[in-house]
């Protein structure tokens, strides 16, 4: 008989190794899954995780993509990590990301072709404002009416997707796009274009912003009162209230932070890698970021590494779609399994297994 015994203190060692164990088990589970689906498991694993970085012909295209994909995911996950520590579940970062992109793009389109000097800065601010505004809906509805923020923020993802469709087929549609539902491309308007800073590296301003945000988030979580307050709220809500931490203020702040960073990520994406909005703009980064936040242990440095790993699975998934005709959604299977195994491995952080001889325990 195996039973779980609670540890007096969470194990630091298990906390560090759980993500590594989860990754390894995910590799094995992937191999088994592909074998069941009649694919060569070794080939599938190689295409998914090895070729994007090291294949001679592919890597020159796919390696820069690592930073391009990781930057928005890391930015969003950093924002989510604050709320998740406090037990505030913003599941709708995808919607805030889309609304940030729409707000930033609309500013860019209004200034299109003008020589106004601060276009890029204004677009960034608009992106943040768009994300914050969208996140304020669940925040205020929860604070004012007690509506569940998980469901409200998630419903708003679907609303944002429809709003994007309305924008790119309506007021924001490019006059030169013929029948296509898309906006003008910022590639033709350099002041609003977020291009590569060093060619063939994938490094753009969003990557720089993600790294700076990680450092700032680390400082806030470790050394600022706010970081302490959200941990107290998450671990002991009653103690938090007694010590004067206002839960409503925390809900608003955490959702504003995650919404703002998601909006910022949307701005960098819409001004750089995609350079325009289409109905295909929503790419699920807002959902991937939830996994990244957990895989990175809600720790900013961990999130940077976890973001790179998950970006690799996305690129590998695209490659697998191209080379092995595996549907793009296979990436979601891998991501879901990774989170399963991580959560399961996490049991060892708080508990240890004890083996009892049958009939004694």
């Amino acid at each position, binding site marked *: 008989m195996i039973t779980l015994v609670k540890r007096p203190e969470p194990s630091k060692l298990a906390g560090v190794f759980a993500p590594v164990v989860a990754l390894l088990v995910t590799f094995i589970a992937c191999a088994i899954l592909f074998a069941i689906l009649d694919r060569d498991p070794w080939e599938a694993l190689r295409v998914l995780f090895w070729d994007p970085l090291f294949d001679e012909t592919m890597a020159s295209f796919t390696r820069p993509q690592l930073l391009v994909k990781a930057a928005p995911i890391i930015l969003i996950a950093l924002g989510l990590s604050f709320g998740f520590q406090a037990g505030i579940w913003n599941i709708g970062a995808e919607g805030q990301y889309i609304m940030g992109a729409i707000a930033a793009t609309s500013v860019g389109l209004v200034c299109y072709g003008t020589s106004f000097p601060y276009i890029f800065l204004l677009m960034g601010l608009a992106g943040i404002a768009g994300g914050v505004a969208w996140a304020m809906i669940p925040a205020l509805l929860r604070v004012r009416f*007690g509506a569940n923020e998980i*469901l409200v923020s998630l419903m708003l993802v679907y609303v944002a997707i429809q709003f994007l469709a309305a924008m790119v087929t309506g007021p924001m549609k490019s006059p030169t796009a013929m029948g296509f539902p898309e906006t003008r491309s910022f590639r033709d308007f350099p002041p609003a274009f977020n291009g590569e800073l060093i060619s063939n590296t994938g490094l753009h301003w969003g990557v720089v912003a993600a790294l700076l945000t990680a450092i700032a988030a680390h400082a806030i979580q470790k050394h600022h009162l706010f970081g302490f307050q959200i941990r107290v709220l998450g671990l002991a809500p009653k103690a938090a209230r007694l010590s004067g931490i206002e839960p409503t203020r925390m809900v608003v702040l955490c959702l504003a932070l995650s919404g703002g960073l998601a909006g910022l990520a949307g701005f960098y994406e819409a001004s750089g890698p995609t350079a325009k909005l289409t109905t295909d703009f929503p790419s699920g980064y807002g959902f991937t970021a939830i996994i990244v936040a957990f895989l990175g242990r809600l720790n900013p440095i961990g999130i940077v590494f976890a973001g790179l790993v998950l970006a690799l699975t996305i690129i590998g998934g695209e490659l697998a779609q191209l080379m092995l005709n595996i549907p793009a959604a296979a990436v979601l299977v891998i991501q*879901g399994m990774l989170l399963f195994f991580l959560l399961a491995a996490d*049991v060892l952080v708080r508990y240890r297994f004890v083996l009892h001889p049958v009939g004694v325990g």
Partner: protein
Amino acid sequence: MDWASLSIVGMLASLVAASTPILLAALGETVVERAGVLNLGVEGMMISGAVIGFIGAVSTGNIVFGFLCGAVGGAALASIFALLSQYFLTNHVATGLALTLFGLGFSAMIGQPYVGKKPPPISDLSLPYLSDIPALGRILFSHDAVVYVSLALTFCVWYFLRRTKTGLILRAVGENHDAAHGLGYRVVRIRVLAILFGGAMAGLGGAYLSLARVPQWTEGMTAGAGWIALAIVVFASWRPERVLLGAYLFGGITILQLNLQAAGMTLNPAYLSMAPYLMTIIVLVLISRQGKQQNSHAPAALGRIFYAPR
């Protein structure tokens, strides 16, 4: 816009069919949450049920077998949640999200060869004489068998929760798992069974989407129906009879916006497509406005992890 093309009877008749998938999933989740478990994986279980049911029906040509496959598929996915949340004591919110992501990906993967295929047709079970009543007959008595099954299940769940001893024990587990454990009830076993039932119901709802409502398989075809089902459980204050009301209300909104689109309303169709989601938010706000009163309806141990030291 062509108002004359809007038929009230036609809309009410299709409302019932549109509501059935959400009704089934929400009924299952009501039982799960009443047992104190918050499974946010409804969307994932629903879409897995949709694809597995579709594959079952297409490969055997038997639609009843298809629905069975859907229910079993949903329960199979739920078993992952049961294993993690009940034995590995994982956080319910995170585990449910992982289940939804996994289900969305898994269904797209195994459903790939079935895109564009047609399932065996589902026949309407027009009740003799009753279905000949003008208007009412078409609205109430000329649907497929699953619609009637879903109504029967609503009654069964209500009866189970309110009138049976097992139902009372299940609710006790959901209100205070430590006390229930102290009385000698098998908290984990009861919760696992509730989770499996919830999965089967979500799977059945998904299968209804792919086999009767649409009927075909497309990636991501649930489009948030599972999340709406979760919202309806809150709307219904965890009571099966109100789940029925909530599901039909949402079905009505969906049908109305589809009909307005078809009737050529000049508004961009994207705005009309927002309606069911906006409606969910508005209803959540209205229901939550009652504040503490509403919270007292929620099972007290909802989403809390049960750990019994030896």
